[in-house]
């Protein structure tokens, strides 16, 4: 029996290695994008999935930039992804999911952690999509993951470029192009089985695949980005397909507006961005589908700095005047720093009368910042990140109650800590990461945080990941 399991794992690994060797594309990230544009992956990504300035423009352009003149192409732009991981944290057991443990949520080895199939590229003319279908090896479920379908065009407004478009997506902030916002923020991958703090703002992943929305955006003069999107529940109606395979736990009542404003400025190789985003959603208490709702109002600010040593330093105007025959010299250093702060007001108009919360209203403040450095060497891209995270909020003993591992003895949502990560991209289609998460405070306390003798440091997590694209 054990031999059979090992054989299955072995054949899976061989299969994935063979996929890497197939000459399917010149590059990766989502390799279908590379096939469509004829550009290498590192034009759009520093180390995937983090975007470069050009990657941001490609996404805003609706994923349709192509080396072909045809409005659509056959075969369709499909790509795949496989993640295999190892997690070491107190309380996890050794198993080889999905081949071994019956309780995969406590398995140290996740093989696979995720398998994804992407539709990434042009659908027709100016309509393109990033659609991810995922098999989650931990929950053993298939579902529609991040989805962003766009129409985009460009023109001149007030003598400057204007990109404008529409987005249909299923996760607030998944449509955003800066890696400061939650959906594509740091850490770009993390353990599916390690314990994580109980409190989080709704815009911080709680509504992923729970809603579907349509929005409009403009990006003027490579300077100002403005977007408005309206979401509704993916439990029923026209948005139901956007939540395919996911149980809708957070049922949004009516429309939930989302906004985004960002300013980006380039100075030589340096790209600076500051912005704000947020949303308001009325959500039924767990188990309810009608009646009063709780209101969540999230207001966030973010900032990003990106140094692209891979872009020539001189100002572009000089070369434009030359008429063009300039050969760019490729540099090797990339630095990106991200920061975001999210304030959430929680108005428990429904949950407080039901006795689910101790306060009629609460709040949460989430702060995250990190800095990445990558060096492009002849042996591949190598680098790492250091990050800090903090969640603070109002104490609510009913909302954050005492229970083993995931609970809070103090009723406080406060957590903070650091993430250290080393990354190596030996070749285009593979990324290897080693990540260590250190908790200073977890669910309100440093020691005995759950009331059952568990300390914050017991949740420190070592996470090793092999991430393959094909």
């Amino acid at each position, binding site marked *: 029996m054990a031999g059979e399991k090992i054989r299955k794992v072995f054949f899976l690994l061989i299969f994935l290695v063979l996929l890497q060797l197939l000459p399917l594309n010149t590059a990766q990230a989502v390799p279908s994008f590379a096939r469509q544009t004829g550009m290498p992956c590192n034009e759009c990504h520093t180390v995937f999935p983090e975007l470069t300035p050009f990657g941001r423009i490609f996404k805003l352009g609706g994923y349709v*930039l192509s080396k072909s003149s045809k409005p659509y192409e056959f075969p369709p732009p499909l790509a795949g992804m496989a993640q295999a991981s190892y997690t070491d944290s107190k309380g996890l057991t050794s198993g080889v999911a999905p081949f071994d443990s019956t309780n995969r949520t406590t398995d140290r080895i996740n093989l696979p952690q995720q398998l994804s199939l992407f539709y990434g590229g042009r659908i027709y003319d100016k309509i393109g999509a990033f659609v991810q279908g995922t098999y989650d090896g931990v929950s053993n479920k298939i579902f529609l993951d991040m989805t962003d379908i766009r129409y985009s065009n460009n023109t001149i407004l007030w003598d400057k470029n204007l990109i404008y478009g529409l987005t249909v997506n299923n996760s607030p902030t998944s449509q955003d192009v800066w890696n400061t916002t939650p959906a594509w923020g740091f850490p770009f991958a993390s353990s599916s089985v390690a314990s994580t703090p109980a409190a989080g703002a709704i815009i911080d992943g709680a509504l992923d695949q729970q809603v579907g929305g349509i929005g409009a955006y403009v990006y003027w003069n490579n300077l100002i980005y403005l977007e408005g999107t309206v979401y509704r529940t993916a439990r029923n109606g026209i948005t139901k397909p956007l939540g395919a395979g996911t149980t809708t736990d957070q049922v949004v009542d009516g429309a939930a507006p989302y906004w985004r404003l960002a300013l980006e400025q380039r100075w030589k190789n340096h790209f600076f961005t500051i912005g704000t985003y947020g949303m308001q959603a009325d959500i039924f208490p767990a188990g309810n589908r009608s009646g009063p709702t709780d209101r969540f109002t999230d207001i966030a600010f973010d900032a990003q700095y990106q140094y692209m040593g891979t872009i020539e330093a001189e100002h572009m105007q000089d070369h434009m005047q030359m008429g063009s025959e300039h050969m760019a010299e490729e540099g090797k250093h990339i630095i990106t720093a991200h920061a975001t702060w999210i304030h959430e007001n929680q108005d428990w108009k429904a949950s407080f009368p039901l006795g689910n919360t101790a306060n009629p209203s609460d709040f949460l403040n989430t702060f995250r910042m990190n800095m990445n450095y990558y060096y492009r060497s002849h042996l591949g891209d190598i680098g790492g990140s250091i990050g800090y995270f903090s969640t603070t909020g109002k104490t609510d003993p009913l909302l954050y109650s005492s229970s083993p591992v995931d609970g809070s003895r103090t009723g406080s949502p406060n957590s903070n800590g650091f993430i250290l990560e080393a990354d190596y991209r030996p070749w285009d289609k593979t990324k290897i990461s080693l990540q260590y998460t250190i908790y200073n405070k977890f669910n309100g306390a440093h020691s005995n945080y759950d009331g059952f003798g568990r300390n914050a440091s017991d949740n420190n997590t070592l996470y090793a990941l092999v991430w393959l694209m094909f």
Partner: protein
Amino acid sequence: MKRILGCAMVVLFLGAAPLLAKSVEGNEYDKGKTLYKNNCQFCHGIRGDGKGPAAEPLLGHPVDFTNSKFWQDDVEKKIEDTIKKGKEMMPAFDLSPDEIKAIISYMSHTFKKAAQNNN
């Protein structure tokens, strides 16, 4: 009667030929305009000045077609080679000879004139 009809046909043909030629040329221009819009404009810009929305973040910078220096020497061959083979970070494009010809036609009619005016 036949002679009159023959003469009329010759006159009609001779009269229509320039219009026909202009129409073919116009079709090529329009085709080139569409191709330029879909394949080139995002980097090289609506005005061909190398200042499209994607220009600023690019490694290297898109060529400015409104600069008269660009239109020197064997420019059509240069454009054709660049589209076919790519250059620096510009990828090779999968365009047919007719499509490349149409793009060159559009660029010549639009940006070359702008370059001359800039001088």
